[in-house]
């Protein structure tokens, strides 16, 4: 008993720390205008390819722009794309999974086999094909990442729904004459919301990864705006001039992914311990 409460306490602390860290980073991104010490487009604030210093935390790039300021603005685009993509995935995936779970029968078969087929294709290849067709832009990146992440969300939503439908309260609700739709909206939704939130966080992490990878192969947001992935691409091309240039945006990407993952993992653990203790 005591060990489980202790573990739960640890999880709570971890969740809190990672959420605070993430919010801190997000805050810096959102208010990049006030936080960043330089204008990200201002040329030659220092000699090109300067190493990190107190004046320029991340050093400077090939045109003498401040890498720290550029990373903040880039992070803003990256995180915005990933959160929007995760929202698209949540929306599509929930409808997809719920439709399969509610109607069952052949529609369930068709929907879930489609999800399996989509998940079998390597994500990056799928994205490559879609983006090269749509053209690389903010909107197409968001949509493609969102669509790519929706099948796994659909599977999760479907299995969560099936668990809820098999419970006694649902049967009792149906027996007392409530409509299925009302039950699902009013009773099932709040119950699966926390699981969907975990999936949202996982999706956001995957979307950051996908955005960075697509930008890295040159299919991301187009210049002059630059996401973290674009910065990594540009920095990698100049890696022999200064490796600080590529290193910091890369570490920032890893940090954001880790934090999203940590929040998801900790939410999941605390959810499970809530369930087992009640």
């Amino acid at each position: 008993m005591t060990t489980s409460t202790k573990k739960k306490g640890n999880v709570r602390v971890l969740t809190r720390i990672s959420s605070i860290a993430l919010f801190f980073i997000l805050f810096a991104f959102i208010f990049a205008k006030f936080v960043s010490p330089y204008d990200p487009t201002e040329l030659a604030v220092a000699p090109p390819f300067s190493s990190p210093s107190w004046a320029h935390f991340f050093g400077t790039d090939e045109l003498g722009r401040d890498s720290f300021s550029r990373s903040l603005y880039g992070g803003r685009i990256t995180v915005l794309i990933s959160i929007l993509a995760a929202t698209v995935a949540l929306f599509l995936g929930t409808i997809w999974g719920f439709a399969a779970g509610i109607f069952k029968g052949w529609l369930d078969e068709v929907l879930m086999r489609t999800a399996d087929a989509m998940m079998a294709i390597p994500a990056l290849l799928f994205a490559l094909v879609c983006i090269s067709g749509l053209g690389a832009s903010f909107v197409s990146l968001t949509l493609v990442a969102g669509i790519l992440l929706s099948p796994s969300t659909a599977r999760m939503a479907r299995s969560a729904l099936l668990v809820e439908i098999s419970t006694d309260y649902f049967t009792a609700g149906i027996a007392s004459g409530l409509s299925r739709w009302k039950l699902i909206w009013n009773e099932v939704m709040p119950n699966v919301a926390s699981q969907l939130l975990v999936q949202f966080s996982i999706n956001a992490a995957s979307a950051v990864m996908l955005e960075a990878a697509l930008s890295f192969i040159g299919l991301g947001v187009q210049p002059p705006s630059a996401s973290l992935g674009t910065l990594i691409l540009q920095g990698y091309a100049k890696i022999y001039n200064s490796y600080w240039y590529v290193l910091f945006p890369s570490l920032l990407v890893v940090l954001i992914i880790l934090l999203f993952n940590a929040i998801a993992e900790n939410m999941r653990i605390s959810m499970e311990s809530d369930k087992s203790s009640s």
Partner: protein
Amino acid sequence: MILVFLALRVLPGDPVLAKYGASAGATPENLDALREEAGLNRPLIVQLFSWLGGIAVGNFGNSYFSQLPVSQLIWERLPVTIELTFLIVLLSCFIALFSTFLSVRKPGKKIDRFLENLTSLGLAIPNFIVGIILVITFSLIWGILPSRGYVPISENLFENLKLMILPTFTGAIVATPYLNKYLRTSMLELQAAPFVRTAEGKGLSHSNILYRHIFPNALVPTLTMLGLIVGYTLGGVLVIEYMFGLPGIGSLAIESAATRDYAILQGVSILIMTLFLLTTLLFDLACGLVDPRIKSNK
């Protein structure tokens, strides 16, 4: 397959325009003539069937740009991808086996916890960032390994392998955590199985039980996982080939995506998906060989 084709055609974006749109003297009439030549103005359904018919006899069509047959372009570059994938899978199996045995010997102890944390870190890092960190450490700071280029095996085996070291490690570092996590979980689960207790009761040593009784049983689910890993590696080599300048089908796909050369992109997509399905099938069959119980169930 049809999905790939439609995705590329229905979505806006014109390869002819991408090729000549910016050059001087491109009149609408010229562009139309080029579309005619490439068969791009025929009805979609006609295009689809002529393409599918082509694939059936191994003809992927011609590149819109170089006019070379797509199958030739792919054949030239396929060996690089296969070599890289093979090396990555081999190395990640090796690391995964080694580290799993290290952690399963004493579950919950320091080494195990350390490896577990390393695994979750590995799951969070995109492959090209692993590559960047490796390039910075080994090529720039220590200067012991080359970061770009390719020499065919037939020319110089040693040089070839030297150039493959960084790409292989990049891929393996990303693929290993998945294998590791899976193998560790299934081995720990099996430690509670009744047959392990029987073996302990017989007085067998701990390591004997681990290697001869638990490991073969954990192998079956891991083999299925390995099939998936091969598939994901096939997807992952796309970026790895591109960043290390290896002329494989992955970098071919990325180049053709940039120039909207759909003929190549379609061909490569189909090929990668086919390879993926084939490996999954192959590993499923291998499971039957390793574990006769699966066969007898049918």
